[in-house]
């Protein structure tokens, strides 16, 4: 009834349609198939071995062969240290004042989060996605959606775990979203990744005051990232009359190219709204 060519064309069309449906279903969420951790467990030990070898070799190079520049750097660091000591004294005074004011206003003391340090052992094989693989997993108490941070700010969140390894989606990934606030004006929006070194700060209303240089912090409303953690600084603001929201670019504090260790927050302090849901 049908020619062979016709059947082939219909077959290809059906295959493409099924393919698109499956991809659109998996794109909107990160389904945990259970057996996904097998691949991670298979490849990650080799990645860990190679990464450690590279770091060892680099360590030898930096520790023994770069001593010429170390002397100059030492002088420079001594100067910086004196400056920092002065600053530190000022901050200690401010901290004491802050503590006094907090107790006066009966503010709840900030809970110190329990964190676990993990080493980055691999990066995403694709240039279109921004994830890293770390050397801690379920056996260390990690699970999906726990936040990963570094001293500079938020790095990302865990999207997959095996027994001893985990996959972390960075905030610069296009699928990442962080509920955030401008520290100065408390303008709220969503930080989304762009794959580049910058993020977009979306859904910030035109009426809100946002300026270049403003610090953007996590709001805690998403129930993933602890409130107040730094994300980045506003590097560009565009206001168009015809639009409801501003176009804001945020440069993250974290240098994702040089990310070697992260801290996983094991008990993220969730906002009341998120924990009620």
């Amino acid at each position, binding site marked *: 009834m049908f020619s062979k060519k016709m059947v082939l064309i219909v077959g290809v069309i059906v295959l493409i349609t099924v393919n698109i449906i499956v*991809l659109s279903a*998996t794109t909107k969420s990160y389904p945990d198939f259970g057996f996904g951790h097998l691949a991670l467990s298979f*490849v990650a030990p080799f990645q860990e071995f190679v990464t450690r070898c*590279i770091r060892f070799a680099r360590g030898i190079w930096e520790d023994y062969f770069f001593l010429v520049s170390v002397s100059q750097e030492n002088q420079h660091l001594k100067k910086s240290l004196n400056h920092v000591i002065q600053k530190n004294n000022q901050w200690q005074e401010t901290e004491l004042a802050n503590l006094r004011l907090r107790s006066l206003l009966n503010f709840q003391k900030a809970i110190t989060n329990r964190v676990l340090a993990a080493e980055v052992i691999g990066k995403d094989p694709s240039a*279109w996605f921004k994830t890293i*693989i770390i050397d801690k997993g379920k056996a260390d108490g990690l699970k999906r959606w726990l936040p990963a941070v570094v001293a500079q700010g938020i790095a990302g969140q865990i999207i997959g775990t095996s027994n001893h390894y985990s996959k972390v*989606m960075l905030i610069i990934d296009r699928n990442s979203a962080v509920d955030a606030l401008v520290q100065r004006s408390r303008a709220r929006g969503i930080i989304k990744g762009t*794959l580049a070194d910058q993020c977009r700060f979306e859904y910030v209303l035109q009426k809100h005051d946002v300026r270049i240089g403003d610090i953007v912090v996590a709001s805690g409303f998403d129930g993933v990232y602890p409130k107040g953690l730094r994300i980045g600084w506003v590097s560009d603001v565009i206001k168009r009359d015809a639009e409801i929201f501003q176009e804001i670019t945020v440069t993250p504090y974290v240098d994702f190219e040089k990310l070697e260790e992260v801290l996983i927050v094991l008990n993220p302090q969730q906002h009341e709204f998120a924990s009620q849901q």
Partner: protein
Amino acid sequence: MIYCFYMGACLILVILQTTIFPYLPLLDRCYDLLIPFIIYLGFFRSIREGLFLVLFLGFIMDNLSGSPFGLYLTSYCWLFIGIKWATTFVQVGNRLLQSLVVASGVLLQNLIFIGALTFVGPNLKLPTEAGSTVVIQILWAFATGPVFLVFFRYIQRRLDDLMKEIVSGRTNFSLSSRR
């Protein structure tokens, strides 16, 4: 033995592109090194042998990457199907053609990824660096793709020779022991 070679080669390529290349300045936007391998399988291996590896590699890469599950599987499967179809009319031995085929494979994968990112992903806007990333990857693929193909084929031949020697050695041994 041949599957050990395949696994070893794939593992080395995956580790190269996840632990070493991202830290090197010129190679941080290199193409997926498994593409030449898939093309090699399409050109020189049977459907049954190739398809198993294509599915296995797709599964591994989907789990290592932050991509939606099935994206690498999709790109590898369509690439393998395309190469198998192309072998019906393409002269496999031509180096320039090999470069073109690898570059086309990289382009196909990038188109699938960009399509998934923009049409079925959460954000309709194209990534800002999409154009430059694709161009850099294609240039890398054009320059280095045939090297991988030649290398895979060379190792394959050596392994085949080795296997033949082992098999003939066993046959001679069994014949002499019977006498």
